[in-house]
């Protein structure tokens, strides 16, 4: 066990895995000498050189398309998109190509590829509309893709190992607000966190909060607050957005009978809709209250001015209010 930040967990895992498997390459804008705009690839270029740590041209479709080709030919590319907000130019390569490669060739060709991107906004991240989005729902709708979002340094390591070793394309989103805000224990060995397994990060018998990413920490804070009044909330970190851990979701919802789904991404058509729909269908008989959802309001993204940004972000207060609504039901 070592204590480190989330960005450091990403960085050291890349370093380790590149050392272990020479097929792993890293490519993206500014990932080389600069080490990435958040330092997630710092030191890799020094360690592995130009051939394996590639500063790409400013072209996201190119980054993903070239990574796909490299994966087809046997490499294990880890592509960085500088911000998740700049994934849309690569959407065709992800949706039309990476996601369908295996299926369309009956498994003859495949595309083991990781696309890492920082996502999210919030406190002290002055990102504004184009450096703050959470776009996971778009990819979670696409068969053939996997989507993971770690909320702790340990999961950052374990899920990144799983993603790099996965036989299929995995989108790996890192919440910027967690990069340095939080340090945590990270196991030293080869500790994979399997894709598709949620984690109960706080136990409770009275309600379930299903969430992921930076919101996990806000949810735990909110749960601690309502616990003061004897309402015990189980907080489940989904960790994988596709495939969802249906078994864990359903088990926890059935156990508590009251469910809140919370995420930072826009609420409408977000991941929470799928999670809520699963609970509504599978746990109908056990539910003691409507499945509540909270998420980003219907505005395009998080504005620059803090006064406006605050309108977007959930924070423990709004989660607490939703939990109290469940408690009162």
């Amino acid at each position, binding site marked *: 066990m070592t204590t480190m930040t989330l960005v450091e967990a990403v960085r050291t895992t890349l370093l380790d895995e590149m050392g272990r498997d020479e097929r792993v390459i890293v490519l993206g804008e500014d990932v080389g000498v600069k080490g990435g705009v958040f330092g997630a690839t710092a030191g890799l270029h020094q360690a592995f050189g130009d051939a*394996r740590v590639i500063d790409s041209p400013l072209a996201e479709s*190119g980054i993903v398309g070239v990574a796909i*080709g490299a994966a087809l030919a*046997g490499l294990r590319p880890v592509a960085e998109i500088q911000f998740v907000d700049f994934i849309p130019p690569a959407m065709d390569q992800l949706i039309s190509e990476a996601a369908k490669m295996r*299926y*369309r060739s*009956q498994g003859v060709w495949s595309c083991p590829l990781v696309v890492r991107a920082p996502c999210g906004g919030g406190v002290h991240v002055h990102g504004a509309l184009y450096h703050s989005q959470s776009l996971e729902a778009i990819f979670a709708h696409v068969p053939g893709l996997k989507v993971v979002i770690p909320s702790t340094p340990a999961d950052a390591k374990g899920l990144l190992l799983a993603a790099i070793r996965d*036989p299929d394309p995995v989108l790996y989103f890192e919440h910027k607000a967690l990069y340095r805000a939080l340090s945590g224990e990270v196991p030293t060995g080869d500790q994979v966190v399997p894709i598709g397994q949620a984690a109960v990060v706080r136990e409770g018998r009275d309600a379930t909060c299903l969430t992921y990413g930076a919101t996990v920490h806000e949810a735990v804070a909110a749960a601690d607050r309502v616990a003061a009044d004897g309402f015990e909330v189980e907080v489940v970190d989904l960790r994988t957005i596709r495939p969802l851990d249906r078994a864990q979701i359903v088990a926890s919802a059935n156990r508590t009978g009251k469910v809140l789904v919370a995420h930072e991404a826009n609420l409408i058509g977000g991941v929470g809709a799928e999670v809520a729909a699963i609970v509504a269908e599978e746990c109908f008989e056990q539910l003691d209250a409507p499945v509540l959802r909270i998420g980003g309001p219907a505005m395009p993204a998080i504005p620059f001015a803090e006064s406006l940004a605050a309108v977007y972000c959930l924070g423990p207060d709004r989660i607490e209010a939703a939990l109290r609504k469940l408690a009162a039901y």
Partner: protein
Amino acid sequence: MALTESAPPDARGLDRATLIGMYRAMVLGRLLDERVMVLNRQGLAPFVTSCQGHEATQVGAAAALRAGADWILPYYRDLALTLAIGMRPVDHLFAALGRAPDPSSGARQMPGHFSSRPLRIVTTGSSVATQVLHAVGIALAIRSRQETDVVLTTCGEGGTSEGDFHEALNWAAIHRLPVLFLVENNHYAISVPQSRQMAIARVAERAAGYGMPGVTVDGGDVLAVHRVVGEAAERARTGAGPTLIEALCVRLQSHSSDDDQRRYRDPADLLDVRQHDPLDRFRTELEAAGLLDGSAADAIRSACRDEVDLAQAEAEAAPVPDPATALAHVYGEGGS
């Protein structure tokens, strides 16, 4: 270009067997293409994109490469190319008829979406020009393993307008990667003429702007294509980087079986392209060089027809895909 049996017909020293092989490959492509179009009119093959008019380009390019070693990322018009690399007529007929043994996709994709791992023909989707970037990524892997294979990727002149085409050429040039970008310019993208696709006369003029050589070749001249592709492949193998090759082709058929080009092309234009049938031209050249005569040509034609007949019979007897497999291969095994 004058051909003689004794002297090698061009600097690359092609012998008679090779030349006749190339001619045969063109004939086979044509006959198979025609057959699929017949099957389409009979309601048996729902969708066809024809290679007619592109055979010289495709066979010339294939013959200049090392089949099974060099990587191919084709597009939907490359029937004759993929045949010449080693796919069998029956493979294409399985696809045309939507039968399970289709090696490209098990009839999951439309026909014309060629794939064969043993032949290093890489699966492509329908989104135009995406494969051009994959070719660059494969070349990157080749380079990283210090192999000497090259990558050929093809698209139409319409495909050059996509952003991916630009991003691919730029990347390949920066890293001097072993990729050949072959643009089969038939002057139409469905109904859109070249003049509405670009403001330049030659696609190859784009190459200089990326810092790579650009060559325009008469795509009706199989030997010229063979030479140009061979030279580019040589350069690529020796680390001298990518080449943009534009082959001027004619599109003898409509864009696809869903299209009718008489609705947007001049009758005169359609007559004119008929005069540029690459098969007629190569046959005339071979005959003039004394390498082929009428009866030999007929023999080739009828052997190819037999091959297609047999393939059709085999394909028609093949099963359609088992619905129980429809959900397989969305994800692979061994993921956590």
